[in-house]
């Protein structure tokens, strides 16, 4: 094997290219100085969001683990406690989120096909569906508040007979999981506002829509978490009414 002096191996690419409108390779210029071109920048941004979403999976993962452990320990208590949740409202919220994911995807499609008006409308609709979800969630939370189902010293044990304390654990998990999810929804609404402002100023074009795409990734992820939460929390004890 052989080695070469390191100098011979470092051919030069002109510095300062990033300040020009096009790079040496002819690809569009990046918007941040330290990237070589826009392709590299957008790939980095997408990988960044995917990595972040993996972090998010682990973040929720701890709660899903706790849920699994306790549901195995106290299946009856979880059934009973779950029956106190309003599965109809939860179901409506599930639909709202699924539709919002659709409008999110459509807005990106519109960006790709330069349909500016439709794109803006879909972004607004996505945000509105997100807000609807939160409003419904607010009504659910306040109902739980009135029935003393917030975990804590004032928890209404009487409602669950033998299983009062364990039902409290269910509601702790319910509030922790849906609360964390709702927080992510609020962040998502902020993201939609940012996307809307950027979109209106013509930031996204068929060649440059990575910002929108990664916001979409986040939005779909948050919806996906709910798709898991809904059956685990609401549907678990829904048949208890019928029995």
């Amino acid at each position, binding site marked *: 094997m052989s*080695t070469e002096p390191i100098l011979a191996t470092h051919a030069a690419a002109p510095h300062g290219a990033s300040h020009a409108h096009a790079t040496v390779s002819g690809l569009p210029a990046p918007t941040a100085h330290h990237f070589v071109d826009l392709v590299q920048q957008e790939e980095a941004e997408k990988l960044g969001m995917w990595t972040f979403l993996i972090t998010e999976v682990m973040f929720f993962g701890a709660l899903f683990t706790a849920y699994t452990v306790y549901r195995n320990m*106290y299946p009856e208590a979880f059934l009973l406690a779950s029956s106190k949740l309003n599965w109809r409202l939860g179901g409506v919220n599930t639909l709202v989120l699924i539709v919002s994911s659709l409008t999110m995807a459509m807005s990106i499609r519109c960006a790709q096909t330069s349909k500016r008006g439709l794109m803006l409308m879909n972004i607004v609709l996505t945000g509105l569906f997100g807000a609807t979800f939160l409003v419904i969630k607010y009504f659910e939370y306040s109902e739980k508040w009135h029935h003393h189902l917030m975990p804590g010293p004032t928890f209404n044990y009487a409602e669950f007979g*033998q*299983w009062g*304390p*364990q039902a409290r654990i269910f509601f702790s998990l319910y509030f922790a999981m849906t609360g964390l999810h709702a927080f992510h929804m609020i962040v998502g609404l902020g993201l939609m506002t940012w996307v809307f402002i950027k979109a209106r100023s013509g930031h996204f074009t068929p060649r440059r829509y990575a910002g929108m795409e990664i916001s979409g990734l986040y939005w779909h992820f948050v919806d996906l978490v709910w798709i898991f939460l809904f059956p685990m929390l609401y549907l678990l004890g829904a048949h208890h009414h019928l029995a």
Partner: protein
Amino acid sequence: MWKDFPLLPDSASTMANQIDMVWWFLVALTVVMTALIAAAVVGMTIYFRKKNDGRYATQIVGSTQLEILWSGIPFLIVMGLFGWGTAVFVNTQRTPDNVDIDMYIVGKQWMWKVQHPTGQREINAMHVPVGKVVRITQTSEDVIHSFFVPAFRMKRDAVPGRYSQQWFEATKVGTYHIFCAEYCGSKHAQMIGWVTVMEPEEYERWLASTTPGEVPEEAGRKLFESMRCASCHITAQGVSQIDGAAPRGPSMVDIYGREVALKDNRKVVVDDEYIRESILHPMAKVTAGFEPNMPTYEGQLGEDQILQLIAYIKSLKSTGTKQ
């Protein structure tokens, strides 16, 4: 001076020697490996030290054979150690069948409450005879503690809300440290005590010299009555009715250690843990053939009292039943 500052712990239980064998092997392995690595590092550093002769280092890419060799050998060594260490674990973990003394220990910030089967109660002290199998069933009233006797090489967490067991057979007369090994708050370092291992005769004398409190079974029997457990559960052989009606709960006679069928077709062995659960969460595992109508006793019974009830239920054998 070395008598005051020993460098080895006492070795006073049947499992201490087995564990020490593994330990000393590991020490030897560590010493040999560290010496070899250190000798190689120091030796080569001196030997290959740069001299101003313009010599270039010899470039060596690597050697797959060497890599296989020095990952294979450590692999075999650690697997051997794993097998040996696990065998010792299984050996020392399994409680022998002939338990001589069933000791109950409750940890509490910051003391160990020891309850002898003969009724003696001790705090931060435990007297045991040499050569007898002692089984400890332990739990905690508050935070997690850990009952640790270095001379016996045994340690186990006392976790609130559940039972854990460990056992030992002392081999040497003497007094040995009890430590709490799991950090438990302000006076963690003072949650200590002494195990006194005595010759059997001396132990008998000690038993005789102390005024025993109620034996746990007896205390349990009283609790069983005062908590009105007997209004649903039969405790005597040959009785089939309570107040002229079929009993509402399963009979307690001979129930300990038996496998019972549950309402949902599962099966469960009646042990300490199950009895505790049934007292605190009766709905969790309802015995087949009975209605789920037992109230919970959560908050009404302390850990000591539950242990007494368990001791009582254990004692309800079809021959020689106390009642």
